[in-house]
């Protein structure tokens, strides 16, 4: 065991190589987990909203607090990023945009578009 290379101690997060496509990929996972966690709330809202006019009014009222709207903006970003990166992965699956140059460019486009549209949702929801 002593002949093994020592464990890396170089852990400066700003200097570790982290290609843009890795950001797209990890954000696809993080947004997917957030969407999964949001699913019960979505079903709850659907349930309330279909329980007559009173339930509908309660469902709308639940969406009013500022922190809920900020949470919804996070979910909106999750959905947008997950959708865009999902389409990118599907295209790569069928052989479109596989070259490093194009894959890097589409990764940038996905990350930035998701972020900008997410911020637009935040602005709209606040």
């Amino acid at each position, binding site marked *: 065991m002593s002949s093994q290379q020592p464990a890396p101690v170089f852990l400066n997060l700003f200097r570790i190589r982290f290609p843009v496509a890795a950001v797209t990929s990890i954000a696809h996972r993080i947004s*997917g987990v957030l969407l999964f966690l949001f699913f019960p709330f979505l*079903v709850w809202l659907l349930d309330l909203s279909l329980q007559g006019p009173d339930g509908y009014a309660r469902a709308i009222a639940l969406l009013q607090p500022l922190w809920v709207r900020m949470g919804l903006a996070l979910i909106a970003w999750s959905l947008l990023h997950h959708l865009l990166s999902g389409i990118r992965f599907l295209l790569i699956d069928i052989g479109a945009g596989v070259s490093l140059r194009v894959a890097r460019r589409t990764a940038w486009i996905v990350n930035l578009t998701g972020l900008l549209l997410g911020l637009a949702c935040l602005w709209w929801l606040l």
Partner: protein
Amino acid sequence: MSGHTHGLRSWLLQRLSGVYLAIYLVYAIASVLQHGSYSYTEWHAWLVQPVMSIATAGFILAMLAHGWVGMRDVILDYVHHLGVRLMLLTLVGLMLVACGLWAVRVLLLAAG
């Protein structure tokens, strides 16, 4: 199915369910945004149209499949302790099944 084809089946299921979820969500969100604010009657009427009810039931089903495969992949990649892994997979499965049954009940009651 043998273990050998299992991975391929999940891979395909994840993509097919993803495409369905994308089409449904883009359509549903675009219709809601285009309509603007709904009264309860309008909202209820929109969701209980047979086509919309069936499409929404399909959305729930696709969500269960997609959520299961996705969460399973994430858990298997990051959680290495066998007990914790099994516990998380069980929780994810239970939550998805519970949400699925709940949503189907909501849709059936709304369709009355």
